[in-house]
């Protein structure tokens, strides 16, 4: 056949060709090519090669990057590794979108979690039905979270030794609960509750089940990569959910405030004391974890000496671990401990402590870069010099800047400077671009300790912990007690005026002139000079703040919240 064709080709022929012939010809060709393609596939191989052929079209020597292979390899490796999380099933969730959640879901989950049976406890059987019975008693109109409270209530009644105060508080709480309006989705709530009451007491069991079913379904969808349509639908769902979650600028939650809880704010110290009373759970397991990490100390030293630097990550404070490393391994060598979480830390201070204390240099530098150059030169010249840098929280607010990281990276790239650091922030690895990473030459070690971040968070402010910067009640009374009665009167005037105006949102303070007038009327001062002298005293003790208004008049303000002020006034009056 082939031969014939070839021979024909050699002879040139001219002949008329009708449209039909042309059409036939073309169709034939197509069939032919199809046939060929099939052949090729038979010949060669199935999937992989088809994928490759796409790339081949681009002709350049682009690598064929087989994504699936990559994921597969990385995934399988994780499975047999002891640490480093379970990436295979976690991936989807770790990097998923945030979607819209119903406001009452949290309390629901809480009750679910509260009721999940404990495995090895026999008491559970006894306790379970009691809770079950309690639930239907709650009236239908209540929201879910209230149900939780009622449960609490029941429980506290059930425990006979409940002090009266707590019960009162609980009741108060539920009162406030009913008066607070759920601006968000009342109707939804009702529906939810109605459904729940329909489903009777075992709602949580049911919902758990259905949730589990959902999960299974979605998992199976994931696995069936063949059904692309499903997948597409799923992604579009994802997109919709994402925009739903981020569309409205107003996010509604309940309007309950901490003040209504009537709980005293604690300062750091008492918080710490209270926490120390709580017995640590799983101490045996935690100890085992720590033991595992401690066994690596020798290896760390080795790798540090061989030019790598070590970074620790994982949940839990790694400060204690590093401290133990320091005390066991580094006693005989020069080392610098840097608390990255310390709010006042700067690269300059790090470099200063190296130049001044380690290298005993007295003198100043024109810039940080000069200082760095000097240090680098010193270390290069004197190879017997060795320095260990221990940085807790390399990713802290103060050190995470590009320049700081560059400088620390350059330090750590010196062959006789050894760096061992810890990071906590979720996105800490994003601090380093390729250049910095090669400077650091990291070896990553996971150190999940679950130990509390006591030291690290002690500088952190929280709404629930009293801030040490603000003026607490006790110091207020202390300062005022040392003042003259006149001065105290002046201050009380200011407090009263401020309390009168506490509901006025545009209140910026009492103007000096008005204040002077009031003080005169109360026979507290006789000239504005004496008033100014008093105010200076207050200002020195940070009892007042002055502010220039738009009209150039001075306004006086006490930077203490009204609750404290009321307490203070009450106390004053008691004493009087």
């Amino acid at each position, binding site marked *: 056949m082939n031969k014939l064709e070839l021979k024909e080709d050699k002879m040139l022929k001219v002949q008329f060709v009708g449209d039909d012939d042309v059409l036939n010809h073309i169709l034939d060709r197509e069939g032919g090519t199809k046939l060929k393609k099939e052949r090729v596939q038979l010949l060669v191989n199935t999937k992989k*090669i088809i994928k490759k052929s796409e790339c081949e079209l681009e002709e350049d020597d682009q690598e064929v990057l087989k994504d699936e292979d990559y994921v597969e*390899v990385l995934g399988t490796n994780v499975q047999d590794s002891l640490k480093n999380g379970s990436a295979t099933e976690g991936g989807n969730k770790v990097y998923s979108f945030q979607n819209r959640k119903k406001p009452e879901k949290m309390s629901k989950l809480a009750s679910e*979690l509260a009721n999940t049976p404990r495995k090895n406890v026999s008491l559970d059987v006894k306790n379970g039905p009691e809770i079950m019975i309690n639930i239907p008693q709650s009236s239908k109109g209540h929201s879910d979270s209230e149900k939780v409270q009622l449960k609490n209530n029941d429980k506290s009644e059930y425990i006979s030794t409940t002090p009266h105060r707590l019960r009162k508080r609980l009741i108060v709480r539920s009162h406030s609960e009913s008066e607070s309006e759920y601006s968000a989705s009342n109707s939804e709530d009702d529906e939810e509750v109605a459904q729940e009451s329909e489903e009777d007491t075992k709602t949580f069991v049911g919902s758990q089940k259905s949730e589990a079913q959902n999960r299974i379904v979605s998992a199976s969808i994931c696995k069936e990569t063949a059904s692309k349509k499903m997948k597409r639908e799923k992604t579009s769902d994802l997109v919709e959910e994402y925009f739903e979650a981020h569309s409205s600028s107003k996010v509604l*939650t309940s309007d309950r405030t901490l003040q209504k809880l009537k709980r005293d704010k604690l300062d750091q110290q008492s918080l710490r004391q209270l926490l120390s009373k*709580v017995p640590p*759970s799983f101490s045996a397991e935690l100890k085992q974890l720590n033991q595992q990490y401690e066994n690596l100390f020798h290896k760390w030293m*080795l790798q540090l000496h061989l030019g790598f630097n070590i970074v620790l990550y994982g*949940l839990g404070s790694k400060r204690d671990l590093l401290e133990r490393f320091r005390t066991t391994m580094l006693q005989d060598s020069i080392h610098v401990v840097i608390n990255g979480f310390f709010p006042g830390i700067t690269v300059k201070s790090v470099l200063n402590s190296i130049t001044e204390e380690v290298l005993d240099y007295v003198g100043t530098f024109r810039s940080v870069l000069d200082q760095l150059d000097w240090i680098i030169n010193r270390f290069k010249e004197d190879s017997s010099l060795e320095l260990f840098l221990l940085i807790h929280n390399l990713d802290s607010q103060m050190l995470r800047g590009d320049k700081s990281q560059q400088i620390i990276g350059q330090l750590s790239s010196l062959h006789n400077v050894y760096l061992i650091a810890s990071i906590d*922030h979720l996105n800490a690895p994003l601090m380093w671009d390729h250049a910095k990473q090669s400077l650091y030459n990291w070896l990553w070690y996971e150190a999940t300790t679950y130990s509390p971040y006591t030291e690290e968070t002690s500088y952190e402010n929280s709404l629930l912990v009293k801030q040490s910067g603000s003026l607490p009640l006790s110091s207020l009374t202390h300062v005022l007690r040392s003042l003259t009665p006149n001065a105290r009167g002046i201050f009380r005037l200011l407090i009263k005026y401020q309390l009168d105006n506490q509901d006025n949102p545009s209140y910026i303070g009492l103007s000096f002139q008005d204040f002077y007038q009031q003080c005169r009327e109360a026979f507290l001062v006789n000239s504005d000079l004496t008033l100014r002298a008093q105010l200076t005293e207050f200002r020195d003790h940070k009892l007042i703040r002055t502010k220039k208004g738009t009209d150039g008049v001075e306004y006086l303000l006490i930077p203490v919240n009204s609750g404290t002020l009321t307490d203070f006034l009450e106390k004053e009056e008691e004493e009087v």
Partner: protein
Amino acid sequence: MATSSVSKGCFVFKPNYKKRKISVPIEDYFDTKKNASEDSKLRFETYQLMWQQMKSETERLQEELNKNLFDSLIEFLQKSHCGLQKSSRDWGFQIKLREIPTAALVLGVNVTDHDSVFRSLTEVLQNTVTPHVVSLQAKDCPDMKHFLQKLISQLMNCCVDVKSNEEGSVHVTQKRTHYSMDLLFDWYKTVTQKAEPKLPSKKRTTCQWQSPPVVLVLKDMESFTTKVLQDFITVSSQHLHEFPLILIFGIATSPVIIHRLLPHAVSSLLCIELFQTLSCKEHLSSVLDKVLLTTQFPFKISEKVLQVLTNIFLYHDFSIQNFIKGLQLSLLEHFYSQPLSVLCCDLPEAKRRINFLSANQCENILRLPSFQRHVEKQTPEKQVALLTNERSLKEEAQSLLENLHAYHVNYFLALKCLHNFTSSLPKYPLGRQIRELYCACLERNIWHSKEYSSALQLLRMLAKDELMTMLQKCSSVFKSSSENQLDNTAKKIEEFLAQFQSLDDVKEEEDSSGSQAKGLQKTDLYHLQKSLLEMKELRRTNKKQTRFEVLREKVVDFIDCLVRDYLLPPETQPLHEVVYFSAANILREHLNAAPRIALHTALNNPYYYLKNEALKSEEGCIPNIAPDICIAYKLHLECSRLINLVDWSEAFATVVTAAEDIDAKAAPSEEMSEIIQYPFISSTLVQTHIKCNKKSNNEGFPILHVILITPFLYTGWFPPTLQ
């Protein structure tokens, strides 16, 4: 001394001077905590030695690969400089005189590797072209002042070095002066004037080297501020006749960036020539070839490890340096964790070391799975001898090591041979790069794979000249190897070649088949395959094959035999554990860690870390006795962007009371509720610390909210390489 304080964040610890002198040698850290007897010192020394060899080998390789580039670059520099020096009245030349000769060096995105390239470039330039080579980085020169300062101080420094410090005093006095372009030009004048009388004695007379050019290397051209570049280029182009400047731009992306950074008025002042480095993939394959696919280094890595390393390379950074770092780590891990790695050295040395092995180590050998398999295959008498007699065990191990060495020699030859045959097949069923083929061969018996059989099928359809070039390549592979293990194979290939040659003469006579072969070569591969298949069927029906086809069949069979004989996966070899490093997970854990996943797992599945049965639960929910932070985290996941702290804390309390309640019914509730609240506070603090959430700044707002910023987009481990 404590390491926490409210007033400072840095604590320096200096041990006593006497104590400090007793520094621990690094080898001591090499001991695995068990006992020091297992040759740890020797192992460490072997590691050090091998790593040094590998390192120098890779460095040498890099130099070799850069040589071409550097040569052309130097040629360009010399040419352009000579052009600058020639004074001509030509108008075109006057124009040219204003243009600064510029070499744009496209280096690729593997920024990490650039440093070494520039280092050797500076060295080469200083040796051959001019003493005045300055290299600047963008981060050192945010503005013109710093730019000039760096430039001038570096220039003067390198000058001082050249002139044996005679101008040291001048250098110091000038340190305080104001840096300006004028200073630069004046400095250049004095330097050239001083140098002039000396120069004729030197051998730099190919063109007028009286005024050596100043070469300025901008390492990362993309990140320089445009204003600095523009100003500098305009000013120096004005003074080009008195200050012969040559620029070298290091470019990571593409040369278009020059025009994007510089306006036309400025870029027209440059006379740009483009240079391209070797692509990093080629670099990688040559590194692989020189370091792994050779018997020079006994250390080998398993398929998984190789895949992890190449994946990090291909998917993350394209950095050779990091690849070598990975190799170093695997080498270290191997010597650290495998006590028998003491035998991972040259064959004669290893044999010697076997004789000195301790009883413990012999025990280790016996425990190796591959060795156990080997023992099982032996006759009973020999088994007993091996298991009981140390002497015979050592002898056996020696011979096994020898076999292993021979196996590797053959393996790599066969691998290269096979690669020659398969690398140019259509659609690359076995991969285009040798590393893909190597991975496949390491993984399992390659001849069981579909890809292999399809490759063979394709081979059976090759034309004669293609086959011949492949055979020629193979024979050159065999020739280049010094070891003569596969001598008869090489001979056989020669024979095949000769037969093909003789075939030519015969073919001339058979005109029909000859013309057909010619016709075939013109068509493309699809047609070729198709027609070949058809021909094959035809032949089959005719039961008649041409001599060429018979020969081709023979060649393919020969290759198949070669593969089946020599490309056995290493797991089949006894004692392979001695030289193969296979713990890919360790490598991945330390090089390509995922802190995010670790955090996620710790929060969602505490059982993973705390192996307590009580914590075991199905996916997605956690028991209420889990660590506080896990519970708080789980609860906060149920909220949208804002979370009410009160709700949160109460939900938390519900969960925890339910858990505590069972244990301590009698506990007074008042105190308990307090105790429950505080762990919550601390766990919210922790979450602020690891930044799962963030406080809203809205202080005046009556409701206390915490904004959840659990990031929803995964941007990848590595930030964009280029700013």
